[in-house]
């Protein structure tokens, strides 16, 4: 059984706002019965203030789909439509105290139903902009379609490329065989052949020159800052951020902020940052949450 949070169970066993809203003036439907989950969101919106007075859901789906629907209706009630449009799937997952990576798509579905309902109210056409494939990387919740698109768009050739561009494969590495299979398939479609030893594709971040030889502590701190700066856009895209707090010897203490703070992926992200630092700096660097610093009895001695 999935390791669902208590909050997910609470919303599943006692869903809020189940059923269609009577006199609804906005309806959003996403999913389908073939996919195994389908969600209909109905809203009653006040025409003058555009405040969502009532929200109701009808969901065919698993425990987390029902919980995501339930918590979504709770979040948006009382919001204006513009405020509601700012609700992200991460907000839904956070309210549920996290979802297993395989189940994050349930929160995405919630956000999409909301967007569809608001588009419906405003008489606009809402287009879904993502397609979902089989989950490949469980550490970072990256699916096959996403990887395929990135391989096509950026002419990626190796597993390392895929990890650099999508994060997929950057955690436990168990999915590398699956990523190779995707590369084989896409490269075959392009008339090329997959070669595991191919030179990596350069990513903008690669422009940071790798350094040779031992570093002074000052050089090390500057370099770490530089690498964190280059990773920042990717983190911010997920609503998070990172700041360097202290460097002691080969250990960098960082604070994960924004959506990264308390995110169940934070540990994996830290592992990814550490990997990147080691690649660029050519030496062993340990990245540790700043909260661990308190455990050092005496910083000087450490």
């Amino acid at each position, binding site marked *: *059984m999935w390791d669902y949070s208590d909050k997910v*169970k609470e919303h*599943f*066993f006692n*869903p809020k706002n*189940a*059923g269609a809203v009577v006199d609804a003036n906005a309806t*959003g*439907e*996403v*999913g*389908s*019965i*073939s*996919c*195994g*989950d*389908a*969600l*209909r969101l109905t809203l009653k919106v006040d025409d003058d203030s555009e405040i969502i007075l009532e929200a109701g*859901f*009808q*969901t*065919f*789906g*698993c*425990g*987390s*789909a*029902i919980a995501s629907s339930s918590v979504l209706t709770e979040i948006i009630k009382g919001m204006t439509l513009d405020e509601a449009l700012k609700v992200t799937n991460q907000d839904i997952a956070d309210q549920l105290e996290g979802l*297993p990576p*395989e*189940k994050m798509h349930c929160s995405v579905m919630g956000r999409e139903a909301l967007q*569809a309902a608001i*588009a419906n109210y405003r008489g606009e056409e*809402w*287009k*879904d902009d993502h397609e*979902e*494939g*089989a*989950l490949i990387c469980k550490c970072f919740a990256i699916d096959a379609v996403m990887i395929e698109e990135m391989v096509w768009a950026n002419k990626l050739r190796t597993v390392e490329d895929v990890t650099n561009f999508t994060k997929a494969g950057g955690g436990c590495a168990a999915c590398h065989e699956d990523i190779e299979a995707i590369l084989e398939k896409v490269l075959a479609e392009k008339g090329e052949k997959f070669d595991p030893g191919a030179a990596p594709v350069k990513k903008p971040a690669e422009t940071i020159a790798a350094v040779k030889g031992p570093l002074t502590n000052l050089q090390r701190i500057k370099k770490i800052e530089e690498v964190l700066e280059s990773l920042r856009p990717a983190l911010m895209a997920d609503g998070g951020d990172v700041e360097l707090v202290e460097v002691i010897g080969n250990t960098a203490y960082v604070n994960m902020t924004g959506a990264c703070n308390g995110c169940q992926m934070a540990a994996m992200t830290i592992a990814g940052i550490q990997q990147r630092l080691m690649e660029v700096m050519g030496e062993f660097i340990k990245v540790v949450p700043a909260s661990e610093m308190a455990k050092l009895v005496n910083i000087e001695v450490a």
Partner: protein
Amino acid sequence: MTDIYLDNNATTKVDPAVVDVMIPYFLEQYGNPSSIHKFADGVARGLKQARQQVQALIGAEHDSEIIFTSCGTESNSTAILSAIKAQPNKKEIITTTVEHPAILSLCEHLEKEGYTIHRLPVDKAGRLKLDAYQRLLSDQVAIVSVMWANNETGTIFPVAEMAEMANAAGVMFHTDAVQAVGKIPMMLQDTKIDMLSLSGHKLHAPKGIGVLYLRRGTRYRPLLRGGHQERGRRAGTENSASIVGLGKACELAQNFIEYENIQVKAMRDRLEQGITEQIGHCFVTGDMYNRLPNTTDIAFEYIEGESILMLLNKAGIAASSGSACTSGSLEPSHVMRAMDIPYTAAHGTIRFSFSRYNTMAEVEKVIEVMPGIVATLRKLSPYWSGDGPVANPEQAFAPTYA
């Protein structure tokens, strides 16, 4: 009432009598069976007895046809890889669309290496067509691998007949019998089955022990090479405690086989009747008239399996589902898709699988709670309204995308 376990096709409780015979092999007779001292001198005898107990349950002609492995998956992999290594010129494999992933994933992998895999389709009741199978048999086929009974629906395949057909065409025949062994009687010496896989934890032995039955004279290449254990056919120090436990479990299964087919079957039938009579828009999947006595798989339309399992779990009832969401994939079970069960139902299938430890009182409890669970979820479903499904559920729901 304590919790009710109806997930015996997933795994079973170890019989206390099995635990009892195992314990001395941890604490006293823990010597390596290959050693010559008193810590080991009873082990070889224990292994021999276990081999004979397994032999008796499956009706093998010789006890040396029993090879102990670590699990059903290892037995399956050993069988198929052995057949293709022993016959390098044969590049085709015949199997079915509804096999366990232990076979299907391996075949998919071999397909990438250039093997042609023939996957026999099933009809809506999960049955194979033997004339299509007959046409595929040729001297190009290295091995046929067909499960004895399906893990999701319990549907039994005519493996004895299929093995005869393969044998007549000079093709090796393997069956994954992990669900069937101990639930239906078998006498392998009267068949043309060359290899058979079984798994201890499906019949009240511990996890981590399995058997590959290998008919004497069948050409064979080991998967694990190393020491002389299992006559060089499966190297690695014997898991003596578990082997002895499996032997005991096989003896018990043989004693209980009549109970399984009368009392256990009666519980299964009562559950099925109680549920389908009370709840509308649900149906039993698989071949109703040719199934394992302990298994029923019921599709509840317009609701999703994982949700049902969570509510069952809350009521203290353990079962399992072929729903996509329980596995983390997007597609419902390949078995349901192969039987062409409509999507409106395939996501809502629940498998109840019994053992001799279940009771009729437990069955009545499940029958009591099931209607409420289904009603609760249908009330939330966009495909359901009031007392029945919305008209044309596939069309009624008009998402912006699908």
